[in-house]
């Protein structure tokens, strides 16, 4: 199984440790993982804003970088959703279709494809609040959502439960969007920041020391709000916890 | 304006981009109906802000009399109870305005929602359901259906010109979510199980 690693632009730039943890974690399972160094972005900022035409070349580049792999794995559900469900600015060739159907968010790849049943190296003796990115939750269906009458399930929680010492902190509005929303965070800054502050307040009230998520983008926004508010909360990507980070 | 009628229907016909979609069959969803619909009805009614009166075997109308605690005219639309006022062929809708209590019989009840159905047959003048300050309602327990699917199988819908489900009293919470009964319609609604004679 040849796996291509996609490291989203903001992870590459601000959270290289998340990319490293993702790579190391996949390597622990004996996979051959490559990171095509000419990658940039999935095209989401443009698509998200409605500018499909402007996204086309970025999408083409993405496909060129990843068409040779059996799976594309990325530590971002939001980018996965873009590739799988919204990469429509370019002609749907076989290569495009292959890449789109084979791109997985890290948690669902571990849970659904590798069917991992243990992380013997992982121990995280902390109180952790889990945040699900909205695309990951409601479009990739990584967990059950409170809006629907369905059997409760959570893939990230199922994986985290295999980590020694971890304790979960419950939020009062676990499914509420944190207000990042891609370009929304810039164009609609006021509401975005208010939603972020409310999310941080909920996390603080839950008694969490750490917040974890399979999406860095939401956490970058939340962390930005938390720091400005002087909130004592730490943000860590789920890849790092599963890869054995202790703090 | 018949020109508009044709224009609208024409535009619709031109714009049917979706192709014909099949009509789903709606099940009755009543497999889980409990044997005792009275208990479920009572729970639902109370949830909606209505009140159940306790039957009195020796004096069936005593609970109705006891429910009438405020002074003012009592209008009875049922033969079982004698009020101060009766509906006559001359009664106008606005004549109901001074009524403090109206005593009515419901056509039937719905256990799922605690709803009572009235048509012009029970109301005589439709405003008897809304202009009085309070309602006291007789409901035949044999006339309770389990859910709304069952309710819409009843004959009233194609017999009456007007039919209403009243589920508890008039309620509003338009100011900061504070529940207030009697926004425009009745301030209270009490129900007595009483078989129709």
């Amino acid at each position, binding site marked *: 199984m040849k796996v291509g690693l996609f490291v989203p632009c903001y992870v590459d730039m601000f959270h290289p440790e998340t990319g490293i943890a993702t790579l190391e974690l996949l390597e622990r399972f004996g996979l051959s993982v490559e990171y095509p160094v000419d990658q940039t972005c999935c095209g989401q900022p443009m698509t998200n804003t409605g500018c499909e035409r402007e996204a086309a070349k970025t999408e083409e580049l993405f496909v060129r970088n990843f068409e040779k792999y059996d799976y594309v794995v990325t530590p971002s559900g939001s980018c996965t959703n873009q590739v799988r469900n919204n990469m429509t600015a370019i002609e749907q060739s076989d290569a495009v279709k292959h890449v789109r159907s084979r791109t997985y968010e890290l948690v669902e790849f571990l849970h659904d494809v590798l069917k991992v049943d243990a992380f013997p190296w992982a121990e995280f003796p902390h109180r952790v609040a889990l945040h699900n990115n909205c695309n990951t939750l409601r479009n990739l269906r990584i967990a059950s959502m409170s809006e629907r009458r369905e059997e409760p399930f959570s893939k990230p929680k199922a994986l985290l439960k295999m980590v020694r010492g971890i304790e979960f902190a419950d939020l009062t509005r676990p499914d509420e969007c944190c207000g990042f929303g891609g370009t929304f965070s810039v164009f609609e800054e006021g509401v975005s920041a208010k939603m972020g502050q409310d999310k941080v307040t909920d996390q603080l009230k839950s008694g969490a020391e750490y917040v974890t998520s399979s999406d860095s983008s939401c956490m970058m926004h939340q962390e930005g709000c938390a720091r400005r508010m002087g909130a004592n909360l730490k943000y860590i990507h789920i890849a790092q916890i599963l890869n054995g980070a202790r703090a | 304006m018949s020109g508009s009628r044709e224009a609208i229907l024409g535009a619709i016909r031109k714009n049917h981009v979706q192709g014909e979609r099949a009509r789903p069959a709606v099940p009755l969803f009543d497999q889980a109906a409990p044997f005792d619909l009275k208990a479920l009805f009572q729970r639902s009614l109370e949830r909606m802000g209505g009140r159940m009166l306790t039957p009195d075997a020796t004096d069936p109308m005593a609970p109705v009399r006891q429910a009438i605690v405020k002074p003012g005219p009592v209008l009875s639309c049922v033969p079982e109870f004698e009020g101060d006022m009766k509906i006559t062929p001359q009664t106008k809708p606005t004549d109901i305005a001074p009524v403090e209590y109206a005593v009515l019989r419901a056509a039937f009840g719905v256990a799922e929602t605690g709803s009572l159905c009235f048509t012009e047959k029970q109301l005589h003048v439709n405003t008897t359901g809304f202009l009085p300050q309070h309602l006291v309602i007789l409901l035949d327990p044999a006339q309770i259906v389990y*859910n709304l699917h069952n309710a819409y199988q009843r004959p009233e819908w194609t017999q009456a010109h007007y039919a209403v489900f009243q589920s508890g009293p008039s309620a509003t919470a338009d100011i900061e979510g504070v529940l207030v009964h009697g926004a425009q319609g009745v301030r209270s609604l009490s129900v007595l199980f009483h078989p129709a004679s």
Partner: protein
Amino acid sequence: MTAELHEELTDPHADQLDHGAASSRPLKSRISEPQPRGAKIRGNRPVDQSEAANRFMAATEHEAMHDARLWDLRQKRDKEMHGIEEWEELRDLASGIKEHTLSKLDYYLELFEKNATANGIKVHWAKDGAEHNAIVLDILRSRGVELLIKSKSMLTEECGFREFMAKNNVEVIETDLGERIQQLDDEAPSHVVVPAVHKLRTDVASVFAKTIGSDPDNADAHYLTECQREATRPLILSAQAGMTGGNFVVAETGTFVVCTNEGNADLSANTPPLHIASIGIEKLIPGLDDLAVFIRLLSRSALGSPITQYTSHFRGPREGSEMHVVLVDNGRSERLGMEKFWPGLKCIRCGACMNTCPVFRRSGGLSYGATYAGPIGLIIDPTFNVHKYRNLPYSSTMNGSCTNVCPVKINIHEQIADWRRTLAGDGEISPVKKVMMKAAGEVLASPVVYRASLPLGRSALRHLPHFMLYNKLNTWGRKRDIPETPKQTFNEWYRKNRKQPGEGEKS
């Protein structure tokens, strides 16, 4: 976490009565503060929702109450959902019934007309708001009506009905408490179900003190509600005509159905000798079996109450009175032909998407500057005026909660994305967005340009991903700290620490 939440919400024993629009727990505002007003309307210029939202959030007591109140309705809705085993099946049915009806809308409209006419209802057809208003005025004038009582109707808001009637010397009295508050304050409803939900009790007290003479220092909800009841009742008794909307129209029986919690539609319809109902042509459903599905879903979705206190079925005039139905198109037949957007016509105006929308809860409904606010507004308003409402589809994080609470399964968040695509394609996009996205698209399409653009200079403004980078306003940093840039990017780390596959083509 979701599991625990589900369990908590399935508890059927409520601590207090919370039917109708009531909150499940007391939510009393603590202070009085001037009420923020809605979006500034400047002719046909695009509405700036964010500007109005920022003013709403600056009124912190209003924002906090609005958010808490609507979130509570969402939770009440969840609790009802857990009490109905067939909930998701009902949503499928509701969606299917609406899609079926819309696909044969001409047939069902004619069927309704035939059956209603046979029962003595006079059916009128109006292609737009102006024609609707003219039809109603004609009926009223010919009967010498000067005072009209009416229940809430979003359609009449679309038609600018009250303003029109005021110009033509017909006094219109709204009888829904929330709508009456808004009428007396000369403001549009901010929410389809709870029109005054953006107001605090003190705001209502000051409106009523000015208009119906209540005590300005008494902001008790019971007192204020009673004042309104007392002030409205004589008008109900003296009005010569009553008007309602219609939530559902049953074609096979010729019935239209109105749902209220206050009983005000029944009073409006049954007290005066003339009843006019204004109904959008998309409200049709085939039969009574179908109606059951919608009545079960409507109030549960809207307010978390099993049913509205009053569900009223009108099939013909009562003896000695007249009943008219005005079927209004106002853009609906055109929307039916919009490949991506016709499913918006399934909407039953429950407001569940507004209650759940995190942007709506923090912005207030008037910030949208349109008849329909919140998620459903974002996808409907541009069909009325694409230029004026072109910014609205951006007032969303596209989180998808709306789509999943929608009782008729409208793919709201997907349509928001489709609108953005449509607007950008048609040039209806703000220049700043266009320029930024064009630049971002060029940078991200080329690994070389992209790598060169990275924040190697480590200057504060450049410490952000591209779509933020090109924003000279640097809105990110106003209320959020900018992330620190690490010593090296992942790309740099990888090149140093791993054997690389062939470096792809450079562009």
